[in-house]
């Protein structure tokens, strides 16, 4: 039985595939996109976060800390402070768990999946960073007839992706941009492997939704969107394409992790509805089934 690290299990998710879904967020991601909505997913191991607005300055964390709490770089993420914190201001992001335990949580909402045509979505981070763990979870779902989706940027070797594909009912395949240099600048990785994975996946899977974040100052140009539309139209197995407008709802997260907010976030604005419609048309022109993501 395999174990892995997850950092959230969100029930009643309505926007990660059809119906009512439980989204399991697997921790760890090789990319570093500045607009990432889940910066707490980056590190592969559990870590401490602190929400200052919940802190009542009771010092329970200081008393509990094996390292005297300061300096931060001495933190071993042992979790003693989070355990001691009465308000939940300090909390552990991520926990080591077994596939069996996660599946027990998934099963709780089975009735809702059945009544709404929903299921489970594995997201991240990059869920394929934990392929054995992911595969066991997918196998359990399949054995119990639960619909599965995997939300991936395909930042992984091709082999595990293809290996998992038969257990996945729906791929939510994230494409960020077509240009390799731009991809490298925006995410810290190139996109050659991703595009190769899309092609390989298209050969074996028939239900892929491509999801494209529309990020101001990164890919929000007609040229980039046209190129992405070309990629989407050329890939096999693609049923739908979703354009997801950037939004700033994650802005409080870096501070909780003791990180600085990326400089781009200060000026980034959500794209206008009209811009989204114009981009969508580029995809429609190529005969793609295009949706614009909800707020």
């Amino acid at each position, binding site marked *: 039985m395999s174990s892995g690290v997850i950092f959230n299990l969100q029930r009643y998710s309505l926007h990660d595939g059809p119906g009512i879904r439980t989204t399991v967020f697997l921790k760890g991601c090789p990319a570093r996109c500045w607009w990432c909505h889940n910066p707490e997913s980056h590190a592969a191991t559990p870590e401490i976060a602190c929400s200052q607005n919940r802190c009542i300055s009771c010092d329970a964390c200081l008393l509990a800390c094996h390292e005297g709490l300061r300096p931060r770089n001495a933190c071993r993420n042992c979790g003693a402070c989070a355990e001691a914190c009465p308000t939940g201001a300090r909390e552990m992001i991520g926990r080591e768990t077994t596939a069996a335990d996660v599946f027990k949580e998934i099963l709780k909402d089975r009735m809702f999946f059945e009544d709404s*045509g929903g299921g489970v979505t594995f997201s991240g981070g990059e869920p394929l960073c934990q392929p054995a763990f992911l595969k066991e979870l997918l196998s359990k779902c399949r054995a119990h007839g639960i619909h599965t989706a995997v939300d991936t940027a395909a930042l992984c070797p091709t082999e595990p992706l293809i290996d998992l594909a038969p257990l996945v009912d729906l791929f939510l395949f994230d494409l960020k941009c077509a240009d390799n240099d731009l991809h490298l600048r925006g995410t810290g990785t190139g996109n050659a492997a991703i595009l190769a994975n899309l092609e390989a996946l298209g050969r074996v899977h028939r239900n892929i939704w491509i999801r494209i974040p529309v990020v101001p100052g990164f890919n929000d140009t007609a040229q980039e969107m046209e190129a992405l539309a070309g990629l989407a139209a050329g890939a096999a197995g693609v049923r739908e394409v979703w354009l997801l407008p950037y939004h700033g709802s994650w*802005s409080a997260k870096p501070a909780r992790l003791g990180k600085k907010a990326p400089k781009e976030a200060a000026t980034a604005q959500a794209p206008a509805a009209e811009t989204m419609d114009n981009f969508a048309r580029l995809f429609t022109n190529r005969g793609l089934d295009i949706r614009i993501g909800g707020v």
Partner: protein
Amino acid sequence: MTGRTERLREESLAAEPAISAERALLITEFYRENEGRWSVPVLRAKSFYHLCEKKTIYIGDGELVVGERGPAPKLVSTYPELTCHSLEDLRILDSREKTWYRVDEACLKIYRESVIPYWEGRSLREKIFAALPEEWHEAYRHGIFTEFMEQRAPGHTVLDDKIYRKGLLDFKKEIAQAIEALDFAADPDAWARREELVAMDISCDAVILFAERHAKLAESMAAATSDAARKQELLKIAANCRWVPAHAPTDYWEALQSYWFCHLAVITELNGWDAFSPGHLDQHLHPFYLQGVESGTLTEAGARELMECFFVKFNNHPSPPKVGVTAAESGTYTDFANINLGGLLPDGSDGSNEVSHLILDVIDEMHLLQPSSNVQLSRKSPDAFLKHTLKVVRNGYGFPSIFNADAVVEEQLRQGKTLVDARAGGCSGCVEVGAFGKEAYILTGYFNLVKMLELALHDGVDPMTGRQLGPRTGRAESFNSFEALFEAFRAQLSHFIDIKIRGNRLIEMIYASTMPAPFLSVLTDDCISRGVDYNAGGARYNNSFIQGVGIGSITDALSAIKEQVFERKAIPLADLVAELDADFAGQEPLRQRLWNKTRKYGNDDDYADDLMRLVFDAFFDVVDGRPNTKNGVYRIEMLPTTCHVYFGSVVGATPDGRRRGTPLSEGISPVQGADRNGPTAVIRSAGKMDHIRSGGTLLNLKFSPTLLFDANGLDGVAGLVRSYFRMDGHHVQFNVVNVATLKRAQANPSEHRDLIVRVAGYSDYFCDLSVELQNEIIARTEHASF
């Protein structure tokens, strides 16, 4: 809405609730002259006849459905034979900040000179309070339970289809036959039955007269008007009033008018709780609607306009004013008249039809406080019906609420009703289940479950007053296991339920002997065939209920004690109790730990949810099946109206970190802000309760409109409802919040911890969001406003 109904609606909204002394004066005059001349049932019937004969008749400009309880819309009658308001009560009603009723000098004068001098010392309320023992009064004063019948009569009653098949003249024939069949030699109660039946007969005459007076007024108004169209309407109104409710209605318009006269008659006769309700109105009207449309005498638009006029009539009738504790337990203008939509037909097939959808549209368009409405959703109800319902819910106001029609049937079968009677039943009031037209299902009072734990922790002493209220069940330090503490809780619960039931039976006896309701008895099977009054057990079924309040709060309190005191041994019970008594003064970290780190009900965590079931079972075991005085039994319900606020005000700090005097959890919803895993987890927790053994439970889920705004949201909520009902959940209500609520939540986060909003493709607790994001959501909600 048409121009007509838009205007009637505006007038109804603009009219100020005010007390009318007309009924009080008429009833006082009649009693002063006649009390003691006849048997009690006949006296009640003749006094009712006097009201119908003398009261002011009102027909408003443009109205199509006519009749008011008071002399004009929003003028509210009083019932001094039940509760004689003092001058001080009337002044409070006039001046209180919420749910006020204007009282003018003329009204005060009538009360001072006529009403009070006669009724002081004679009203039912005074008789009840004088007769109840001191143990009852002490518990009542300390907020252990409330009493429904101390100022309003037994009600919670719903009509079935009988008035659409028969007129009052038919019922008079049945009454005559029942008198004819009395066997004075064999039946020692035959004379009592005869008096009751004579009273029922008189009450039918009274209502026919009441309708006839409307016919005459309509005719004279028709003669006086120069508006040809209005003249035709008034002549049709006159014809309607002359025909119904004496006879069975022959068309859709008459059907509405017939119900409305019966409604007015029931709420004039007595001030029964929850007014009166039409039940499965869509099912009852459907044949008339079809017949009208097929014969070309009724259009869809015409049917809609009549329905809108009918809705305005409900809104014209604020609840009779309540005072004291009873005002605190349900302080609202709404009188809880409730319309059922959908459900099942007696043969078990789906009951929704065109009229169901028409009424949903009217609810959506009218946005009135009254009438309440609910949808009875069965396995057989089409998804289109559920989606239509949710679209109406999305537009705010929390209506209609949604019930599980299949569970409602099963609950009634457990109570021993026939399948046909159970299917023809449904829900009224807030969430209460009954067999429509065949049952007196009486709520008797809210019961403070959390107070029982507080007493168990204090050896029966109320820490708020220092009084030894309950039995001595052991001091906190004496409990060496959770089970021992729970036994003390059970002992306190049993002690006070006994006090409540003893008091209830006394009150039932007083109503049966002094306050019969002959007209309501005509409308309720089998009062005529038995010759027994509604208030004396004449109905086919007679369930009485005690409503438990605070299941979420007590579950969390027990969970905190079980884990922190008995398992982790983090704090001795006596120390914890000392901190509760000090309201956690200087112990904020402890309070925060209890508040944030207790395993709480509403999170689909069996540790807490099993404790909820333990409390539910204890409450059920001590109440269910105990006999009332009407050949029925006591049962439990789980609903609070607004009583969780009052009960919270008399309970000290609790082990879940709740502060002294703050509200308890509401219905079977989790403690405000305790649910952290989203709506499916709340529903799973609530679904672990055995709803079938209750007579109704209330689950309130709060959503922002944006969460319901797009198709995904609507589909998601539809899935939530279907799944909850597969778990035998009884009722769910979606409280759609508006911008004002969001702003209040921003200012007072602790009171709105349970507010769910859609953030960005996911949902979150509003109060956990940054101020900036909160502002963004407020702006978005404003943008997406209805």
